[in-house]
C-alpha cells in the first residue's frame, strides 16, 4: 500500500517534471528527459549584500530561479573584488566549491547560514544604500548582470530587513580607517 502510494507519487512527480519541461515547446509529453535537455531559463531575485565589517571580506546572497533545464552557477565576477568565490556551508564550516547547481524547474537559493558568494580583498568598503555589480556566469545560460543592494549588517530578507533603522546607529566610530591601506592580506582564507 505504502509502496504503491510512493510509486504513484514518484510517477506524478516525473509526469509533472515532464510536463513542465515541455512548456510550449510542442514536443511530445512522453519525453520524460525533456526538462533535462531543454535550455535553462534563469531569473535572479532577492539579491543583497550585508554591509561588511571591514574591507577584507563580504558575502552576498540571491536566488536564481530556473523554469528550464538544469544549469550550474560556475563563477561570479564583480567590480568590488577580483577574488570572488562560491561557498557552501556544512554544519558550522564553510567550504569553497567550484560550482553550485541550478536545478531544472527549481531554484538555487543562496541564503544566510547556507550557500553564499564570498568576496575577498575588497576594492572599497560598500556602505548600506550603495550597489555592487555582479556578473553571474553559468555553465549553459548566458551570464546575468545583477545590481546588488548593500543592506544593513543585520538585514534579514524574511522580515524585510526589520532592523535597518537600528543598524544605522551601529558603532562605526572605532573603525580603523587608517589601517585599511596597509592591511595584511597574506592571511587570507579561501585562496
Amino acid at each position: 500500500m505504502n509502496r504503491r502510494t510512493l510509486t504513484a507519487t514518484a510517477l506524478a512527480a516525473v509526469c509533472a517534471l515532464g510536463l513542465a519541461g515541455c512548456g510550449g515547446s510542442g514536443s511530445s509529453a512522453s519525453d520524460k528527459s525533456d526538462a533535462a535537455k531543454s535550455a535553462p531559463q534563469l531569473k535572479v531575485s532577492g539579491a543583497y549584500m550585508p554591509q561588511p565589517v571591514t574591507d577584507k571580506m563580504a558575502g552576498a546572497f540571491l536566488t536564481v530561479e530556473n523554469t528550464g533545464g538544469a544549469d550550474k552557477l560556475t563563477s561570479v565576477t564583480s567590480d568590488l573584488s577580483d577574488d570572488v568565490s562560491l561557498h557552501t556551508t556544512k554544519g558550522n564550516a564553510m567550504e569553497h566549491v567550484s560550482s553550485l547547481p541550478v536545478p531544472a524547474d527549481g531554484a538555487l537559493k543562496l541564503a544566510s547560514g547556507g550557500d553564499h558568494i564570498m568576496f575577498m580583498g575588497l576594492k572599497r568598503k560598500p556602505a548600506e544604500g550603495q550597489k555592487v555589480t555582479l556578473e553571474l556566469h553559468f555553465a549553459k545560460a548566458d551570464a546575468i548582470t545583477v545590481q546588488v543592494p548593500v543592506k544593513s549588517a543585520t538585514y534579514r530578507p524574511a522580515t524585510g530587513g526589520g532592523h535597518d533603522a537600528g543598524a544605522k546607529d551601529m558603532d562605526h566610530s572605532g573603525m580603523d580607517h587608517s589601517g585599511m591601506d596597509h592591511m595584511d592580506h597574506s592571511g587570507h582564507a579561501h585562496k
Partner: protein
Amino acid sequence: MRGKTLIAAALTAAAALTLTACGPDDDGGDKPAASVSGATAKPIVTLDKPIEKPDLTLTDSDGKPYDLLAKTKGHPTLIYFGYTNCPDVCPLTMANIAVAVKQLPKAEQDDLRVLFITSDPERDTPQALKKWLGGINKNFTGLTGKFADIQRGARDVNIGIDKPVVKKNGDVVSTHGAQVLMASPKDDRIHWMGMQEATADNYTSALPKLIKGQNP
C-alpha cells in the same frame, strides 16, 4: 550532572534547528517534533540547568592576558566563538548583538562584557580581532590563544568547534559556534543561549532583562 545539562541543551538546540529546517514547508504529515512543541524554535533559549562559564585565560585584542572568569565576574557576559574570515554568520551574529547593546543605557553598556573568542587563532591575531571588532563595537573584547585551549573551553560550554583545516588548494576551512552564550551577573553562570536565527530585535528585547539576571 554536567553531562545531562549538555545533552538537554544539545537536544533543545537540535529541536530548534529541526523546526527551523522544516520551516513553512511543513505539511504536518509526519511531525515527530510535535511532541516537543514546548520547544518551539525560540531564538533565545533559557537553559533548564545553567552552565559554568569557560575557565580560560586567553590574550585580548590589546595583546594582554585575559582571565575570563576573573574579568567577567559579576558582569553580564555574552560569549561567542567565531572567526573574522567569516562572511556570513559571525558578522551577522555580532552585528545583531551590537544593535541591541547600542540601545542599552551607557552604564549598562559599560557593565556588559561581550566576548568574541576566535575559533581560528592562527589567523585571528590580537590586531586582526581589534580591527574587525572595531567595525562592530570597539568595546567588545576579542580573545585569541592556543586552539587546543579554546576548543577545550568551548567544549566545556557545549560549543563544538573544529581546528581550521587547510585543504590542498589552500582553502582554510574554519568553524564557528552555533550559539551565543549569555551569563547572568548574579551567579556568573550561563543561563541563556542565543540561537543562530536570533535577530537584532530578539537581542534588543532580551538583553535588558538578561543583564539584570532575569529570564527574557
